[in-house]
């Protein structure tokens, strides 16, 4: 049980690290938002599932309720985070920001 939890949390941390590195290293606005939207959502999924499993160590109805609440957080993050990123990207397109092409300078 503990091994699964540790594996899940490490998986989530890898996703978070990738998201952070991408946020820092990618060349422009749109490509920077890509890791911010995707990898953070995935990382929070793994970490929340790991925490929910860890919480079920001593099984009881109260613990099950807490775990369900943790899973509920994932559901709402999955709905809200990509939508927010979508809205930000759309605002960028409407404001006329041109996407980065190969050979351009980093912005």
């Amino acid at each position, binding site marked *: 049980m503990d091994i699964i939890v540790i594996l899940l949390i490490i998986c989530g941390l890898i996703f978070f690290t990738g998201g952070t590195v991408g946020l820092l290293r990618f060349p422009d606005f749109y490509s920077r938002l890509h890791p911010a939207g995707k990898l953070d959502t995935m990382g929070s999924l793994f970490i929340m599932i790991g925490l929910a499993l860890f919480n079920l160590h001593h099984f009881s109805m109260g613990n099950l309720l807490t775990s369900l609440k943790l899973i509920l957080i994932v559901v*709402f993050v999955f*709905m*809200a985070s990509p*939508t927010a990123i*979508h*809205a930000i990207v*759309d605002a960028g397109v*409407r404001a006329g920001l041109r996407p980065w092409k190969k050979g351009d300078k980093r912005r």
Partner: protein
Amino acid sequence: MKIIGLIIAVLTGILLIYATVDFPPWADPGSPASTYLSPHYIEKTMEETSVPNIVTAVLADYRGFDTMFETTVIFAAGVACFFILRTFKRKEPEEIFYRHTLTGMTIRVKNSGKVRQDLDEFERIDAMWTPHYLIVKTVARLLVPFIQLFGLYVIAHGHHSPGGGFQGGVILGASIILLAISHDMRTALGRMREKTTALLCTTGVLIYAGAGALCLLLGLNFLDYGALASILYTDPVTARSHGILIVEIGVGLAVMSAMIWIYSNVSSGGKYDEGL
């Protein structure tokens, strides 16, 4: 006039800074607050008010007078935004834009004509370029009920967990503001009219002050909820817990509608048109 205001502000600031010299030093274990006030709260809150969350008990019961005026300050902020920004003289624009929601085309109607009101396919917009976000609108509509449910939970659960009227009120207000941002302000105003907002804001403050005045009428001090025991048919300790809940509901109403009021006045510049 500006100079007088500046002088008054500076003098008040100097006075306040001068007064801080008399405070006990930072984290002084011998200060009056640490020697008998905090231990009293920590030890006696459960048996005096039967509220497990000490913060809520201190906020709404022991120091209820302070919290009442905090609510009044928020109410005053909403009223100030209304009086400063709201413009009642409506100037109808010469051209009105409508969006045909099925095809996404924009129609321009000139010379103050209008599209017939009974046509559902046309949606009034304020500028030619107003975008139509299907994804954002759908997700916002999906999330708003859950946000409101969570806001009610935070208000009602303030006795047992972090939360209470202020936080829950802000969450409830944010749900309507999310609707106004993702759709437009007309939709949000269709859900909650300006009059409703103003009435709820005043009602919230009235519930708080009224709960206090009721205690006064029943023979105890202002905001001493133990007096409500005879109305609620409980013992005074449980009545204090219930009194806190009543007050939290008032705070929640006032904060929620003040947030919506401030947002709709500021974001539309008092014109109450499409908003952001």
